[in-house]
């Protein structure tokens, strides 16, 4: 079950960053390795603060790490 439509490129970005391990990323962000694993697998949506910390640790912008599909992809725009 994936509770969110948010996707992420953490795995690819980790490998682009000298093959950074999940443990290293977790250490830099200040969360547990299990949390990084859950975020990577789309099983957990992090807070905005942790999302920014992940982007900073990976040296990219927030929307390079996390993506949200356009409303035209099947979901009606909410008002």
């Amino acid at each position: 079950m994936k509770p969110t439509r948010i996707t992420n490129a953490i795995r690819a970005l980790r490998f682009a960053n000298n093959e950074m391990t999940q443990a290293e990323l977790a250490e830099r962000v200040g969360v547990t390795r299990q949390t990084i694993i859950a975020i990577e697998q789309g099983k957990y949506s992090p807070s905005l603060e942790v999302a920014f910390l992940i982007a900073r640790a990976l040296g990219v912008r927030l929307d390079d790490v996390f993506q949200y599909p356009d409303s035209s992809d099947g979901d009606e725009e909410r008002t």
Partner: protein
Amino acid sequence: MTLTEKRAWCLLLATLGAYTWYVVTVLSRVSGGAVQETPYATTLLVSLGASVAVNIGAEIVLSILNPRGARRKDERDRTIDRLGDQVGQAFVIIGGVAALLMALAQWHWFWIANVIYLGFALSAVLSCIAKIIMNHAAIPNP
């Protein structure tokens, strides 16, 4: 396995062990008469006390074995704790309301004490199961 999950396993096993011991002990004393005449109060208190003591002991052992992990508790752990506790709270309320209704109906205190204890045990068990599941499955978004 995260520290949250280890703690949940410890509390789950301590609660199940203590409650099972209590039920088996009390039922073994039931003779031909009414069940509510069976001595249960000391056994219940020992069972509750043992459950709490074992859980505290397990927490101390976990902290000694994993001092760094014991300090770290991130936002996901806190979310799992909160959602798991919400699952368990329902059974404390159900047990309390049931005990209130039984008292109003003047049931024997044996049944009132036991329904409260059952509510506590169910609350702890289901809360722990929810936490263990959420450690492996997806966590629902608020």
